[in-house]
Every structure is written in structure tokens, then in C-alpha cells.
């Protein structure tokens, strides 16, 4: 994993999560974030984020974003 990804996919996921957190409760936020990522991210990006999470390299990832990406595994 190059450093490029940690500086792009993690903040991108967080940004999405931030929006959905503002829309409603936690469950809805996780669902909204997951749906959005599924709809707009190429699979390779999801795989990269999951790999970062698995590798413990996604420290900056928010809870909602983390739950969302794990749901997409």
C-alpha cells in the first residue's frame, strides 16, 4: 500500500460519513455511507480501504466510515 491511498481513500470515506452522520441516527449514517461508497467507488478503492483497515493503517478512519466499509466487505 502506498501512502497515496491513506491520504485519499480514508479522508474520502470520512467525508462521506460526515455527511450521512448529519442526516440521521447512527444506523442510517452507516447505511447511507455504505450505499454511497458502493454506488460511487470502484471496487478497487473499496478493496484498498479494507486492506488499510485490515492492516491497521486506517487510524484516521471515523467509526461510521469503518462500519460502513466493513459492511461492504
Amino acid at each position: 500500500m502506498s501512502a497515496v491511498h491513506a491520504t485519499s481513500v480514508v479522508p474520502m470515506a470520512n467525508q462521506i460519513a460526515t455527511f450521512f452522520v448529519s442526516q440521521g441516527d447512527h444506523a442510517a449514517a452507516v447505511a447511507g455511507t455504505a450505499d454511497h461508497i458502493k454506488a460511487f467507488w470502484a471496487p478497487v478503492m473499496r478493496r484498498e480501504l479494507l486492506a488499510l483497515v485490515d492492516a491497521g493503517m486506517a487510524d484516521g478512519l471515523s467509526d461510521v466510515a469503518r462500519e460502513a466499509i466493513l459492511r461492504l466487505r
Partner: protein
Amino acid sequence: MSFIQETDYGTPAVLADKTVTLTIDGVQVSVPEGTSVMRAAKELGTTIPKLCATDSVAAFGSCRLCLVEIEGRAGTPASCTTPVAEGMVVATQTPKLAKLRKGVMELYISDHPLDCLTCAANGDCELQDMAGAVGLREVRYGYEGANHLTAEKDASNPYFTYDASKCIVCSRCVRACEEVQGTFALTISGRGFESRVSPGQSEAFMTSECVSCGACVQACPTATLTETRVIEIGQPEHSAITTCAYCGVGCTFKAEMRGEELVRMVPWKDGKANRGHSCVKGRFAWGYATHRERVTEPMIRSSIDEPWKVVSWDEAIAHTASEFRRIQARYGRDSIGGITSSRCTNEETYLVQKLVRAAFGNHNVDTCARVCHSPTGYGLKTTFGTSAGTQDFDSVAHTDVMVVIGANPTDAHPVFASRMKKRLREGARLIVIDPRRIDLVRSTHVEADHHLALRPGTNVAVLTAMAHVIVTEGLVDETYVRERCDLQAYAHWAEFVALPQHSPEATEAVTGVPAAELRAAARLYATGGNGAIYYGLGVTEHSQGSTTVMAIANLAMATGNIGRPGVGVNPLRGQNNVQGACDMGSFPHEFSGYRHVSEDETRHLFEQAWGVALGAEPGLRIPNMLDEAVAGAFKGIYIQGEDILQSDPNTKHVAAGLAAMECVVVQDLFLNETANYAHVFLPGSTFLEKVGTFTNAERRIQRVRRVMRPRNGYADWEITQRLSNALGYPMDYAHPSQIMDEIARLTPTFAGVSFDKLDALGSIQWPCNDAAPEGTPVMHIDHFVRGKGQFILTEYVPTEEKVGPRYPLLLTTGRILSQYNVGAQTRRTENSRWHEEDVLEIHPHDAEERGVRDGEWVRLKSRSGETALRAKTTDRVAPGVVYTTFHHPLTQANVITTDYSDWATNCPEYKVTAVQVSRGNGPVEWQVEYSAQARKSRRIEAAE
């Protein structure tokens, strides 16, 4: 092809419910009440002599040639200023009138050169026509009297010449500048016999307030204002109607030709987007098509350090196909992708995305809308159900309150801006929400009621505060909301915006917008009648771009301003076919018509039609492609008509991405900046050379017609088709109309579109199908496309790009009138005379603090990079904000911009970059190096 003649009805058309019947020269005619006698006669085919009247401006009544006799009325009233009346009996030709007209013509010609044979307007001169029509045979006054025959020519404007000796002082130019363009750059100076057309204070056109839109040239009935090109080469002999390839307004032009030589582009009166008007770009800046730097032969090279080698088309295509197949074989199917061009036709764009999906076998296709209006697509689809603006341009004539957010129409969409200004002069109110004092805020005869000069990046806070005012002050159109919107979502939203933290008073510290001003603006929008919102990239190019679009949609729904003429939410699209490129399925997650690749039914439809299997998951977007390239997984790209190096943010990152690829294919007119990193260059064709359609910002599909053969041998769609065939995926379209037929077959919103219908109707606004066979000017009339309008909560989330001690100023970027985007075209025309280089607008306080004086070089630095350019001190920008354009590669403003982007669509945050400005003494090292590298990269190996 023949020469197309327009009919001049003399006075503008009148819309009226009531019809009036009158008799003209013994023939009855019925016309709308309020129509002039002159126009009524023309409807009958009767031409009344005229010089000062033309149907683009209001009747003036000065030339006195159009006088008629009306039974029961004294004297000889002017037919242009006399409205029809029921039962009126008009005579247009009587001995008395004949004598009178001859007398007037005799006066005109007594102060006019007799050089018809050598005059540039010979054969295209209304004065000449009228002298013939009235039978003038001699001028008994002689030519020794007072005259203006020795008046000097003004050739200061590169595109047209003002020959005062030929001026008949009809004021058509002055009136066109006022009524059509709204600039008021011309006047008549002096009075009586000494009355003269005067730009500015009797000065040259170039130093006056003239914006070179060409309206005066268009209006002039003589050779007084003539295109320099006509003076140089003479009159055209055939013409074709086509669509401008600059901004998203989509002006219709008549291209006037001599053989394959373009003589001039004349705005077409029946063009429904421009209604006969034009701007300095579309009207005049087409010389790039034949510019010496245009590349017309394919070229390849194995490494970007090598010079280019000219090759045959066969070799170039075969090489490209083999490279792509090699890369896919080595790095996987997803390792290549393509970028469609918003400059190309719908048909070409459709073909590129088809190439990617069907021949490349992935969804790695994106388009420049990624970096401009992708949030519009997302935001409007979420709230209304359609990824497009809701209105036609004509709608503005019914608007009572205009809200302009993050757009600068007078520079970026000048022809539509003129229509806005016309409506504003008629009394419509205006709210401008922009960090910068754009011209609309205050310019001749136009003044905004409210200018909310917000801090860059705080759109959402401002719009939510406006919603707060509308909800808490009881200004919501409750009936509308009840009938048209999702009530639960509305209630949720209303509760949200009503929270005290969203009040203007609470957000003032963040936005910098005085609460009282914001409240007043919100009240005006909610209660001032038909409210229409127009917005541009100042809305979308933010980390909260999509949220802002939805905040706008919320406001429109809450106030009932959707679904009829005069209202709506209207994105002003940047490029000629950015709407079309999006419509055609250029995004990695969508097929044409905005249908997600995961929708099985749609996907199966395409699989069946195209004979391939298609994936159900989205592909990579442009920034993701570049990230993947830097990471080593993305290796090849086919870029049609886009210069991502200059246009996309964080240039260094883009360069790194491109440099990491093994096969970069650029299809363009010129060796652009991106081509510095390319391995294959496929010469593209201009809009003058191809056949197809563009779709403008009002969803209007318009024909592009070939006026000359492609200099490079092929239209762009043909090149894509050849590449596809070489890749082993067969395409055999014989004509772009067949591509459109396929689009129509596969896209419900385009179901009724065909070239034949476009030719018959002139243009069509989608959706066009069985439900709307002639298209849809205004959307969401009875109900939203998605069913119920959806309110979305819009929490303000500050961008992570923050000012601090190192970067204390906020940079925002935009466009200027004379230049266009990365300048690839306009920089290769005389338009550069108006804007030779990008400059940095900086408030005098900020300048003084840094010891920077107007016109001096400054260094502009962000955490992404550094560049240098000249400073322009102005209070158009607030203290703390600096502004520049991105038209010139030497400046490379995008070296400065960051890779922050919209949360939903990755649209880059061009509009907010924390920067520092300091004194400079010329270009920085990077610029010098870049120039050298670019020069090196553009070397072409000498032919053997």
C-alpha cells in the same frame, strides 16, 4: 450549400393573446395586438423601406423611410412605431410616400461616400438596398456641402472596423449595445448634423467599455461596422447553421463561408438559446481552427523524453490498440480507462464511453464534469430526480427575483447574462451570493439588491441560514410543499434549519455575511414573486459542493419556486457540451440517461445492444485514476479533448499520475499540456469540421453541422470507431445520426430524439419521448421526476483547507470574458489582446501589507505548490481573499489548488485554497522549468 438569408421583420415579435386584423395595401392580415404596422406588413410579405428598424431592437423611428399612410389619420406615421389597430387601413406605397422616401434617401446619400463598388458591404448593405428600393437617381445637393466623408476609421478592435464616414447615425449599434448586450458602451456624441456614434468618450473601441460581443456589428445596416475579415477577403457565398463550441449557453450561429474558408460567424436569430446574440468568443474567436499550431497528423513516441514521430493513421491506431491490449494483458482489464470530452459532440462522447465499457471492458470512464458540475448531477438527482437544470433560458424573462450564486455570468455565460440584465433592467430584483464583487453586483443600469459577500467555502452555512429565515419567519409556501414534496423529510428539514445555530446571526461570524443583509435577501427570494436561482462552479467546486446544490434545491422547494416559467434551479454549465457528456453516460457509475450500472434491467439492455458483458460496479473517476496511476495499478488512458494537466487540481499530482502511465493517448487539436506526458497524439477535429449534436445548460440538444472538412482527415467519432475496431470491438456507424439513433433506442429521456426531428424543430430539450414529443422546456411542472421533492439536511462542514499563519489568504478562481477555460482555443486568437496573462486580484489592504503594488509580480504559494504572476489591486475581492483565472499555462493556477474535493462526487475544491502572497520578481523556478520541459516535450522529429 446555399446562402441562408434571415428575414428581418423590422420590429421585435409581440406576444399577445388578442389578435388584431387590419388591411395593408388591400390585403387583410391578423397579428398579435401591439405588433407594429411594419411587422404586420412583413408577415404579409410586404417590405416597407426601412433603415433604423431591425427586429432585434425596439422601434426607434428615426430614419423616416418607413412612413405610411393610414386612412383617417393625419400625416405620414412611421410604420415601425405605429402599432396595429383593428380595422386599420394602411397604404405602404403611394406617390406621396414615394416622393418622401426619395427625399429622405437623397439626404442620406448627400453625406455618404459613393464607393459602393469597392465597399466591403457591397451586396450586403441596407443603405444600398434602400437607395434601389426608393429609386433614387440623383443627389441634387451635390457633395460640396458639409459631410463626414473624411472621418477616420477605427481599426483598434482586432475583429471589426468602425468606418465613421459610412455611418448613417441610425443608432442601431447604440441600441443593440444597450438593449441586446446591456453594456451601454456606445452613445451618440454631439447633436444635429454633428451626431456621431461614439464608443466611450469619443475614443477607440478598444479603450471603451466595449466587450466586443458583435451586437453592434450585427445591427449595422451599412459598412460602418464590418468584420475585419469581410473587409480583407470579401463576402461569403454559402452558409450553414451550427452551434457554438464555447460555453454552456449553446449559441446558434450561421457560419458564413467561401469554399472551405470561414468568413464570419453570425449569431442566428432563431437560435433559442441566444436569440440572435453572441459574445466575443463565439462570434469572433474561431481562428484557432486554422491556427498554425494545430496538429493534423498522428504522432507517437515510446517515451515522453523523446521527440514526437509523425506516423500514418493506421500506424497510430494499431500502435494504440496494441499498447492498450498489452497493458491490459499485463496489469489487468481495469488498468486502462478513458476520458470523454465536453467539447465533443454527444455522439462522440457516447462512443468514447461505449469504447471504454464495451471494448476496454470496464467502467473506467469519466469526463470533465467531474471537475465542474458533478455535484449538480448528484444534488439535483437526489432532491428532484433529474441531473439537470429545471428551466429554459427564455424562462428568465418571467423571473421577478434572481439569485446568482457562485457564478459570474457576464464573463462566463455572457449571452445569457445579457438576457438576465435585460430582465433586471425591466425591474427584476437581484441577489448575488459570491465572495467577489462580480459585474452583476453593480454595472451599468444593473444593481443587486443584496450582495452576500461570503467567505469562500461557506455556501452551505449561508444557504441554510436563508432557509432558517424562510422557515422561522413563516415564509414557506406550505401549499406547494404539502402537494409536491415528501412531508416527512420536509418536517425533518424544517426542524433542522430552524435550530438557533443556523440563524444568520449565529452564522455571521463564519460566513462574514451580515445577518440583517442575509435576512433581507431570504425574505426577498421567498416573497418577491417568481424566484430563480442560477449558479455556477462557485457552488459545486467545494468539499461541500453536492450539499450546496441540495441546499439550493431545498430553498426552491420550500418557496414553491420549481415547476413553472420564471423560477427554478439552473446550473450554468461551463462547457458547450458538459450537459451532453453527462447525459451520454460519461460517468463511471452511470449509463446514458443517468442510470446506475448496478441496475440490472438497464445493464442487460446495454449488454444486449452492445453484445458484451458489462460489470455492475462503478469504475474509477478521474482523481481515482490518477491515484491508482501513482500507486501503479492504472497504466493507460485515452483522453479525448481535455487538458487535465492544466485543468485539474494539484498539477504536480496530475503530472505524477500521467508520468506513471505507460500509454497516454491524447486526442486534441493542439499539443496541449497533458500531451507533454503523452505517448500517442491523435489529432482531433474542430466543431466546424464535424456533424453531431451538443446539449446546452438548458438541456437543449442542438445540431452541429460541418462547414469544412476535418483538417486532420477524420471527425473525432471516426477516430474512436477506428480505435474500437482495432481493439477488436467492431463499430460501423456510417454517420453520427446512427449513433444518435442508438442513443435514442437505449435512453428513455432521448427516445424521441433524431437528427431529422432536430432539423425540423431546430432544437429539442430533453426529456423527449412519447410523453413529450417536442421536448421539455420546463421540468417538474406537475410533479417532481422522482415523485415527491426530497428535502435534505445541509449541515455546514468547514473545509479542511484552512487559513493559518503560513497561508493566511483564501484563493478562489474563475473565468474571464475573453478567455475560455485552459485557453487552448482563445489563447490562439486575438482574444488574448484583452487578457494576455492571468493576474492575481488582491485587495489593496492585503497588497499594502505585503508591499505589493498594482502590476508587480507576486509569488503565490499554497501547500500544494507555488507560482508567480502579476498582481492587480482591486476591492472587487474582500480583504483576505485573492482571485485569479486559470487560462494560461505559464501561470498554472492549479499548481496551487489542492486535492480536497466534494464528499459525494470528488469534484475538486478549486474555490478554496489557503495561500500566501509575497513580492516576486518574475516567474518562479518551477514555471521556468515547466516551460523548458514543455518545449522539449513538443519537439517533433523532422520528416525524413
